[in-house]
């Protein structure tokens, strides 16, 4: 009996939920806003699906109905990827420790 590949993906999925559970509980509450913006950025890895869809148009019609949605999705996901990572970077750069300069 062969195991359906779906079961393997499901295993990865369930295990990742557990990893996510433990990793996110260890995130310090003061960084919860950057957590949201960075999860925003990484969930835009959905762009890989958009790229496959965009490239699927054949050479005569690059913009067929399917690939057009792919191209639009590429732009949407790219806004999130660049916007998400950069704004996270901007926020994290602001978190500073106490300076030891007593006047």
């Amino acid at each position, binding site marked *: 009996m062969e195991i359906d590949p779906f079961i393997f993906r499901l295993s990865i999925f369930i295990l*990742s939920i557990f990893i*996510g559970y433990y990793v996110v509980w260890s995130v310090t509450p003061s960084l919860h806003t950057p957590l*949201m913006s960075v999860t925003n950025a990484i969930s835009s890895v959905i762009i890989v699906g958009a*790229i496959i869809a965009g*490239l699927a148009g054949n050479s005569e019609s690059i913009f067929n109905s399917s690939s057009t949605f792919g191209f639009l999705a590429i732009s949407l996901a790219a*806004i999130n990827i660049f916007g998400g990572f950069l704004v996270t970077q901007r926020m994290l750069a602001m978190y500073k420790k106490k300076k030891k300069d007593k006047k």
Partner: protein
Amino acid sequence: MISANLSAIFYLISGILFILALRGLSSPETSRQGNYFGILGMVIAITVTFLSTGNFSSGFVYVLIFLLIGGLIGAFIAYKIPMTAMPELVAGFHSLVGLAAVFVAISAFLNPEAFNLGYPGNIKLGSLIEMSIGAAVGAITFSGSIIAFLKLQGIMSGSPITFKGQHPLNALILISIVVVTYLLCSTQSPNLFWILLAISFLIGFLLIIPIGGADMPVVISMLNSYSGWAAAGIGFTLENTALIITGALVGSSGAILSYIMCKGMNRSFFNVILGGFGAIEKSSSNTSKEQKPVKSGNAEDAAFLMKNASSVIIVPGYGMAVAQAQHALREMVDTLKKNDIKVSYAIHPVAGRMPGHMNVLLAEANVPYDEVFELEEINNDFANADVAFVIGANDVTNPAAKTDPESPIYGMPVLDVEKCKSVLFVKRSLSPGYAGIDNDLFYKENTLMLFADAKKMTEDITKNL
């Protein structure tokens, strides 16, 4: 062109890098490195996708063009956005993830051959189910986030919008989503796919309109979670490990944040989601409100109190964000510190409009993060502090949550501000907070109300110090 096995391994690597990106956020020192891991993971995922399709024809050029357009818009927003607008930005970004998931699902439905999912009208059953779930959750995320965005921007009223029969209607739509998905999978009819998308958009909209402004931390976290589940659904369709791992991470992250926020308000998740909280004011608290005496003061009085204190605890809330008072506040604190007064900040989990909102604003104003404390860390210190300076917070300081079982916020963890020797309360007026309940703290013997705009009052106090 690289083999499917090799690209699967690279997708796994980028999945692991995303885990490390979140792991880095356990402390501010490691967080920046974590963000680089995330970026690296994304670069690997995108590069591998290009290599595995091996298609560098004219279509590739268009992919790059659309990528660049999106990237430029994203970078522009990231640099321009003021820190106070972070909740709106995050809500807006969630909507884009949702819409991208919907678009990818649509293109997979229209051209399943491109994804090895079968043929139009004969898509593999498993893939079709995954696709439908991804598309439906994506659509809910999109329309829900749009409403959250409009409410946070103030374009739409932050007060809950409720109507008769709301819950039965929502239940009906949710059931019909399941029914339509079932019919879609058995008939493969494109019309049913469009109907599924339409009702999913509708339910996202209906689910968020009854939820009020101060419940936004829960809503944003919940939508964060949804965007993850949508990504995971699409990940199953595309058989892509990076997407499955990320979807699971983001999904559980958002769920945990929603849980923390609900706990911070001592309300069940369903209580928040069903909405309408705070729409009905308690009549009992209204009748006695006018008679109670209130001590109010000006900036000079406040400055006098603080100058003679040895320790001050600052309690910021959403009002500080609205008044953009964080910089003025830090200047005031600098002056206090020059007078050898110990200052710390106390942050309630649901202060502001999103998790961690206050921390970001204080960080923006150059407040060192080791002076900022969470509720459990600092709550015992109020009894030993001389002055509590409450700026723009209200319900999170209300002692009724501990003493009055009748109060709608009874049981909610609150900051023990009243234990301080004296309390300075910066507020525009005596109006009750979001929960529609009166704050007993206003009438306490040791409370001094400072009726003014938070920023202006803080600046005035600094002048008088």
